[in-house]
């Protein structure tokens, strides 16, 4: 190579090298507070909110984000496994509480919380599901950070159009179904009919989109709301007994399978983001997802075509043979825990942040920015209720929420339900066989547990 070229080549290599070596990201910042959370909008909101904390106290806060499809769980569990101190605060999923407590990874906050957190303002269910473990023990290991549940979004513009209303009435008449208006469904059966209408009668459209992926807990979360509405349950959490196998569980699984006939060809393997994609594309009439994913739908930047054409509702009810009406929604949400493996000085610093976060004013700001607060006053304030179109649903949702197992073995238990429900939904395994398999495995896992509290 001629001299000048060679000089340029080596020069640029040198510059690139120096640049990458001085990468700010590399190397720990000893005085910063590291928080581990999932890679989603609430985490970005928290980072933005934390900048205010930095302004007030000078402590830098870094929210490290990992994706829901496995990286977040792996990051947290690697931290636990290595008893590491990379993160000061871990915003773990509600199901991880048992694991964090028994493994000694979450710092106990039972004595600290009453003195530093306005506990009387927190919705009792939030404390129950996000902070307390075991349930009923009044021992706390996290403060509620993000309250969340599964909600439903629908295309209000389509539901309100006269053409569709008339066509829908005709559709019902054709099938001999007792008439009900095209609007927010009150029961699961109504939801199914609306979905079938859009799927069969409207070209280019599908009925529903629900998270049905094998990854993490997605399909189990979608199934749960049906399971409970139909009268089934996973088990007695307090006594660690699996009571999953029941006619109701089978019925719910069968219903789930039938309901998914009104989804797109890829509808039996959708992740949280895929559900959002379906709604963005405008090809689906109703979708189910965690509330935390809804901001992307009402934001004109990410959803330029339909952001103002959407409506929201909580999961519908189911009336069983005896006339008993049941309604439930799948609980999501995370609590903020202190990593038990960090130094006492860092623990104190983490607690200071958590105290700041739980204060009324900050919770208000958190909620208005799109985070979901568990503070009752905030939830009832008019600012909050009007900030986003679905905020008014939370009060109702709190009363309907239920969670999956949160024992230390929840990972193994979840793996089983994910595998079997996917087999039923994606590979035509008979619902009864799937339910039986889950029951057998759950019994075995709970029987084999080797820890003692």
């Amino acid at each position, binding site marked *: 190579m001629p001299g000048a070229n060679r000089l340029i080549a080596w020069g640029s290599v040198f510059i690139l090298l120096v640049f990458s070596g001085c990468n700010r990201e590399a190397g720990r910042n000893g005085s910063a507070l590291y928080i581990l959370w999932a890679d989603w909008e609430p985490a970005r909101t928290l980072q933005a909110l934390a900048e205010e904390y930095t302004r007030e106290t000078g402590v830098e806060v870094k929210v*490290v984000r990992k*994706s829901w499809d*496995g990286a977040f769980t792996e990051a947290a569990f*690697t931290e636990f496994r*290595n008893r590491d101190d990379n993160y000061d605060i871990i915003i773990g999923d509600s199901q991880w509480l048992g694991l964090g407590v028994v493994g000694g990874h979450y710092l106990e906050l039972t004595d600290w919380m009453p003195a530093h957190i306005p506990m009387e303002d927190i919705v009792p269910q939030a404390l129950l599901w996000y902070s307390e473990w075991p349930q009923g023990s009044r021992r706390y290991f996290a403060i509620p950070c993000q309250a969340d549940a599964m909600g439903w979004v629908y295309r209000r513009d389509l539901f309100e159009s006269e053409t569709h209303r008339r066509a829908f009435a005709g559709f019902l008449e054709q099938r001999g179904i007792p008439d009900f208006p095209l609007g927010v469904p009150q029961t699961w059966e109504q939801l199914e009919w609306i979905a079938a209408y859009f799927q069969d009668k409207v070209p280019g459209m599908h009925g529903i989109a629900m998270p049905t992926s094998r990854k993490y807990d997605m399909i189990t979360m979608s199934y749960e709301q049906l399971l409970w509405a139909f009268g089934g349950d996973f088990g007695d959490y307090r006594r660690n007994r699996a009571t999953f196998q029941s006619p109701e569980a089978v019925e719910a699984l069968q219903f789930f399978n039938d309901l998914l006939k009104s989804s797109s060809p890829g509808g039996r393997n959708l992740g949280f983001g895929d559900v959002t*994609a379906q709604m963005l594309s405008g090809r689906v009439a109703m979708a189910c997802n965690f509330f935390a994913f809804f901001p992307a739908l009402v934001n004109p930047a990410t959803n330029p075509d339909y952001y103002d054409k959407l409506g929201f509702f909580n999961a519908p009810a189911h009336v069983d043979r005896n006339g008993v009406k049941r309604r439930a929604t799948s609980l999501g949400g995370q609590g903020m825990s202190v990593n038990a493996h960090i130094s006492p000085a860092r623990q104190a610093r983490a607690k200071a942040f958590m105290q700041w976060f739980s204060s009324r004013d900050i919770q208000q700001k958190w909620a208005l920015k799109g985070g979901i607060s568990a503070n009752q006053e905030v939830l009832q304030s008019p600012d909050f209720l009007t900030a986003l179109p679905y905020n008014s649903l939370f009060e109702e949702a709190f009363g309907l929420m239920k969670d999956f197992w949160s024992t230390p073995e929840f990972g193994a238990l979840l793996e089983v339900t994910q595998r079997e429900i996917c087999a039923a939904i994606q590979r035509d395994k008979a619902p009864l066989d799937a339910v039986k398999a889950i029951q057998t495995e759950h019994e075995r896992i709970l029987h084999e547990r080797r820890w003692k509290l």
Partner: protein
Amino acid sequence: MKRRAFTWATLPAILVAVMMLSPVLWMLLTSFKLPPDTVAMPPRFLPGDMAPENSFWFRGTLGNYRHVFGDGDSVGPILNSLWVAFWATLVSLLTGSMAGYALSRFAFRGVHFVQWLILGTRLLPPLAVAVPVSFLFSRVGLQDTRFGLILLYSALNLSLSTWMMKGFFDEVPRAFEEAAFIDGYTRLEAFFKVVLPQVIPGLTATSVLGFLGAWNEYAFALTLTSIDAVTLPVRVHAISADSSSVTWGPLAAAALVSILPPVLFTFFTRRYLLRGITLGTVKE
């Protein structure tokens, strides 16, 4: 054989090249689209103004590239990958050249054993080593450090470097060193001053392959990095797994940035790459 302008082989050849590159071309297009256009059906191919339903037009935007370079989450991994790949290549080049030289020049009992030991590591499934390495790294504090990655990648590239350089050294007649010895050079001096300059093409090819190996590596980076040392392949996959919104656009943009070095290197060193990939048996 005379070079002809067009033979009947040209057309299928062009077709094949297009098929091979079409995913990359689609990636290029996708990187300029807004979220709804990336999930539109039928897919949209041409940039234009607001698309009516069912058309081929999409709204062009630079937002995805701004996202990749702007919000900082991807810039770090790009720099990390550059840093790690550079040093790993350098270390494995140096150690591999010296080892390849030794294997080429010295005959000693066990030379075959050493040879196959070094080659054997290339056949090692990365996952088989990933679990204990992750375990050990965390015990000694190398977890999530660029230094740890550099060490590991150097070892991974070692077999390729050694094997390739041995092949190149085999082609250098011993007369060179012997002349140097007569002039009073030590073995080490002879190596650096006389022999190495003879194999610069080999060094180039080896370093390119080494760099690409480190640049593209995913399995180990997945388990060994979390915050500070995250490399580009891990970051790109994380973008695709982000469930808060539709991310195919940013994914395409980040992916294109990642494949730039491989494409450039391939273009400039294609003559020697084949030799490297086949462990020196094929010299074209």
